[in-house]
């Protein structure tokens, strides 16, 4: 078949693979029946676990805001974001991961404090972290702390040796910074 010229090497189409990392996504929704289930179904359908999720009303009636934290491949998360936008009840979906933003989480930690020394030490740590003791018993202090991921991790690590009896976290909430500052000033 002389009319055709054979090419020895063919180019291959590039298949993009994304990095796997933690994403933080803000979703504004109409506060309708089943909206949380729709969002959870969609994310679960991609085989991902939701790391944290917080939902609350906004200043507008009938509009709620969710902050979702998921670990996943950048490209698949991009698909998740597009699919979330397609849901009829979502109004705005934004992946904040690469946008300057403020993150906060509130945590309640019930610490074993049977001795005066333990109580003093836990109180001191709590003050350093600008937290509060919100409940006291003969055996325990319950500490409330607010902050970003690193700060929460740090205080949890510091309190662990005393014995944490219970812990509850709200899940992160996040908001885009208006001026896009790079630095992340604490409180």
């Amino acid at each position, binding site marked *: 078949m002389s009319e055709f*010229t*054979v*090419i020895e090497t063919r180019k291959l*189409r590039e*298949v993009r693979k994304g990095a796997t990392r933690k994403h933080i996504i803000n979703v504004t929704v*109409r506060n309708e*029946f089943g909206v949380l289930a729709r969002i959870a179904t969609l994310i679960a359908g991609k085989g991902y676990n939701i790391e944290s999720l917080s939902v609350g009303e906004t200043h507008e009636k009938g509009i709620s805001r969710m902050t979702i934290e998921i670990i996943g491949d950048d490209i698949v998360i991009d698909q998740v974001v597009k699919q979330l936008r*397609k849901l009829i*009840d*979502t109004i705005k979906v934004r992946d904040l991961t690469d946008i300057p933003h403020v993150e906060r989480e509130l945590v309640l930690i019930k610490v074993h404090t049977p001795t005066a020394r333990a109580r003093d030490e836990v109180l001191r740590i709590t003050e350093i972290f600008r937290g509060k003791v919100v409940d006291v018993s003969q055996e325990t202090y319950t500490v409330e702390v607010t902050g970003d991921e690193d700060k929460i991790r740090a205080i949890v690590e510091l309190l662990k040796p005393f014995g944490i009896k219970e812990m509850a976290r709200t899940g992160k909430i996040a908001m885009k910074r208006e001026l896009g500052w790079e630095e992340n000033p604490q409180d």
Partner: protein
Amino acid sequence: MSRKGADIVIETLIEEGVEYIFGLPGGAIMEVYDALYRVGGIKHILARHEQGAGHMAEGYAKATGKVGVAMVTSGPGATNLVTPIADAYMDSVPTVFITGQVPLHLIGNDAFQEVDIIGITRPITKHSFLVKRVEDLPYVIRQAFHIARTGRPGPVVIDLPKDITQQLSDVSIPSKEEAISSLIGYKPHLTGNPQQIKKAVKLITEAKKPVLYVGGGAVNAEAQDELLELAELMRIPVTTTTQGKGAFPEDHPLSLRMLGMHGTYYANMAVYNCDLLIAVGARFDDRVTGKVEEFAPNAKIIHIDIDPASISKNIIVDVPIVGDVKIVLNKILEEIKKKGAKILHEREREEWLEQINKWKKMYPLTYKNSDKVIKPQYVIEQIYEVTRGEAILSAGVGQHQMWTAMFYKFSFPRQFINSGGLGTMGFGLPAGIGAKVGRPDIPVFVVDGDGSFMMTMQEVVTAVHYKIPVKVAIINNGYLGMVRQWQELFYEKRYSEVDLSIQPDFVKLAEACGAVGFRAEKPSEVREILEEAMRIEDRPVIMDFHVDREENVFPMVPAGKSYKDMILEDGKSPDVETMYLVG
């Protein structure tokens, strides 16, 4: 005026222009059936199984472009609709599925015939509603139709608790605008970004070897005229998917017919070698692309689609354009005309078309006919001849579906009704019935496999009941043929559980149902039976064609392989030297 919720349902459906409902009643939906009886104004087709009703609604929608409506009761009625709902979701069919539900106070109690159908169908619907207040009914129904038919169309489920349909209300039917005003997060983007359109025009004029790859989105948007104009003006060959068939006439010299796993040699070669791929309302399904790395490896890609989530999902594209296909193609045409844009490489473009013609001549769609045994492809060709290419064809899923796609040339949109994305066996007959209900002016042939037919054959009775003259051609090879073909090619002929040779006598079955039955066992009998079938206008006809049992569908690109691994007739590989062009 105070009336029952059920009456409000029917009134709103009439306001939405619904002419037909396909359904099957039961306890939880009885109020609505009672209102249908009392109020009238909508014709109802009583299917013999809820799955049948669902596919009829799909067939109706695919044939007419209108929203198809199916209505069933709660529990098993609703679960029997799950397959049609998933099918409509995969193929973007505008449909509204109305399910009865147990009274609100019993929801969650494991009541009789209760299932959480909203929960079950959440991943396979565009949206769904559980109606909790009778006053919401007309708003919800209007919103459901709006969502089903706009943007990327799809199925919407409305779950109606029985007490909501029984309560009285004097709510008036809102206007469409009023009803949808609360859908603040739903605004499909239609127009396409002007900068992207300029980029697309530049690529189209500069390309030496362009190909248009057209999917179901072009049919949904009714963009056939724009497509034809663009293809002819810029001399671009066109290939279509199963869902895109008819958006571009297959008897046109620029048509490459279908691409992908069972696409033509020349369509796949054109896509493999092109330098610009213009995807129009198509979604780069794995049955189309094969191995992604080797799909149009040298091409820049323009992708026009109404669904932003379809763009760069499977393949990263160069120029994404989100918008309604018809509007965007019009803008591209305007831009071309305004700029007086010309094909830059006129000579290369003509060489490209010549090259495609060589491929067409070298490996046309073909098969070895026989005068002893009926070849399935021969039956399809004969159907094409007796219908003069003007019938609507509905197919089940499997070998017969692919032979229909290959050997019937489709020339107008909505002409080929088949289950592409979900691949639902049993789709053909009920979808064909729905299509005929929607288009009584056009003959409707159902090409079915024996396996597919047996999954929904109860609907023959429905067609008899309503005197719906669908013509069912069973391509009977006594096998689950496509599975058998894969077992032959990839599992060393270990034919595990595919023999269907124990089967009913389809002629007697047809007669028992009140339909006409024919059988052909020799090629010489085929034509006569088809002509006889064409003359029957008052009932369905079942034609049992006993075909060559082990005929295979070729060409074939094995799953996950590249176009260059294509198998042609008789299992031969194409001459490798014919496949590559100088990039």
